[in-house]
């Protein structure tokens, strides 16, 4: 007995140490980024966030086009990935015959294992030409008058970036949504069925029960899309401009760091790039923390769990937490 107690104590100490270490590591990264961007912070202050010019030659650095590009492409990705990802989750928990569920879910999750660069190559060789064709068609219609579809159809640009991001994010959204749906007590679906619900209505009840968790899954996908670098860099067009157009070549925070870091000349330039890294780091951290909180809130079950609402079985922490 005593010995076991001792072991548990050791284990507890060990895990706490690791936990503290992780937090310390995150803090250290933040500080390091802060330190590495001090020149840029000192020179531009908050105007760094709102400046639209990125001109290394004249030493003018504004990050807005990159922030804009990152948000735009991530939102676009989510617009596609959220319904598709949740759809896959519903499909593989409630619709498909049980023996096909695991294999199908596994296949969907396999998408997450494909290296980013492969997505990028696929994007260049397959997606971009298709998108270009699509854009060409659209720009022949009156739709081109809308800001969303203005400009020449390059193929390389926001639409391609959004779509490739969507593809990369879908496995995250679907696997976490799936866990959330599986954590919804059977009693909820049964309650719906017993009141005369069809299968779809019962699924709706389950989705409603797990809605915060589903939202968390979507947020997690957002965090993921946010930091994604390689594939986006390859298809977004790499042009720092603020444009509402889906067709316009734009830029993202991660992409500009990846492209320009190795050839940045001058300290201010380096510090400006690092500051973009800092902004990315902070936002990603916030988005991930928010999504995790939402998912936990479902796993704990809403409201007064003790009073008869069965707590969902504890499910393993979603493994999709890492954002690049």
């Amino acid at each position: 007995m005593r010995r076991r107690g001792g072991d548990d104590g050791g284990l507890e100490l060990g895990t706490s140490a690791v936990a503290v270490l992780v937090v310390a590591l995150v803090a250290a990264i933040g500080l390091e980024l802060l330190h590495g961007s001090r020149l840029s912070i000192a020179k531009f202050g908050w105007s760094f966030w709102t400046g639209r010019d990125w001109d290394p030659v004249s030493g003018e650095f504004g990050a807005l086009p990159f922030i804009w590009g990152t948000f735009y492409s991530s939102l676009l990705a989510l617009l596609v990935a959220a319904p598709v990802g949740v759809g896959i989750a519903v499909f593989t928990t409630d619709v498909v015959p049980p023996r096909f569920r695991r294999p199908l879910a596994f296949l969907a999750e396999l998408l997450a294992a494909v290296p980013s660069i492969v997505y990028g190559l696929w994007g260049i060789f397959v997606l971009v030409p298709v998108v270009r064709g699509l854009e060409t068609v659209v720009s022949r219609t009156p739709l081109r008058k809308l800001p969303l579809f203005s400009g020449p159809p390059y193929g390389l640009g926001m639409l391609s970036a959004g779509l490739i991001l969507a593809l990369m994010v879908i496995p995250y959204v679907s696997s976490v949504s799936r866990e959330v749906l599986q954590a919804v007590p059977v009693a909820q679906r049964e309650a719906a069925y017993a009141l005369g619900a069809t299968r779809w209505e019962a699924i709706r009840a389950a989705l409603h029960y797990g809605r915060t968790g589903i939202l968390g899954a979507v947020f997690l996908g957002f965090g993921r899309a946010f930091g994604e670098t390689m594939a986006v860099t390859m298809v977004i067009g790499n042009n720092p401009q603020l444009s509402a157009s889906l067709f316009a070549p734009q830029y993202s925070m991660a992409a500009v760091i990846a492209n320009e870091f190795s050839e940045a000349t001058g300290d201010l330039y380096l510090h400006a790039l690092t500051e973009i890294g800092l902004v990315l780091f902070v936002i990603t951290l916030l988005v991930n923390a928010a999504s995790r909180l939402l998912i936990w809130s479902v796993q704990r079950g809403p409201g007064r769990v003790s009073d008869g609402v069965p707590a969902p079985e504890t499910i393993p922490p979603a493994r999709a937490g890492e954002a690049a």
Partner: protein
Amino acid sequence: METATMTPSPTTPTHAVSMDARSAPASAPAADAPPLIEIGGFSFWYGPKQALFDIDLRIRERAVTAFIGPSGCGKSTLLRCLNRMNDLIDGVRVEGSVRVQGQDLYGPDVDVVDVRKRLGMVFQKSNPFPKSIFENVVYGLRLQGVKNKGVLRDACEKALRGSALWDEVKDRIEESALSLSGGQMQRLCIARALAVEPEVVLMDEPCSALDPIATAKIEELIFQLKERFTIVIVTHNMQQAARVSDETGFFMLGKLIEFDKTDVIFTRPKQKMTEDYITGRFG
């Protein structure tokens, strides 16, 4: 005998010959009206495992019928077969028939959704939706496409009065159902089942998670409800079965051992096993 097969099983289990259940008169005695539900030659399998063996049972209208028996004897299984909730489980198979007003629930053209509207269910653990009290009660009506606010309000009040919850919650029906106490939640679930005006209310150990006061309330409620509804209740509590039910079926190992008027079952059962069980000698 009608046969309905949901999932054909490769291994057809041999039909176990039931012994005592056959020899005992398993039909409701001295019922003047024809029974509302007539279970005939009913067997049930979870995959290869047979859970119910050749059950014959009649349930009278506007009466309370109790199922008792040791854990795992198939009470819940039979109850869930009465509104086809077991369809949701993979690989189950049934044989025999469950006729409600003459119509076989396992017949070929039966609309399962409609069956579940006609035979409502209350579960062992209350399972309110994480919505307002009002939205919980009218959920079934909304499924049926009722949109009129006034109609929904009236139905909600009627159902909550029917489950003796109205006075406690009438000022807070827009609040979350999860803010109710355990006993209130269970009565809410009863109200939710009543709101769709079913013919039958199936209750699976509705009080097992409740304290004695909440239990007493629900028992009283059951007593009132039988004026309007036919009730089938599964319970582990002998006193409860004796108090609330008109007829009682005793099950063991998937077989119906004895079925009779409740006072007969509890005072002069015909089967030794029944007597042993109700006197607490086993189970």
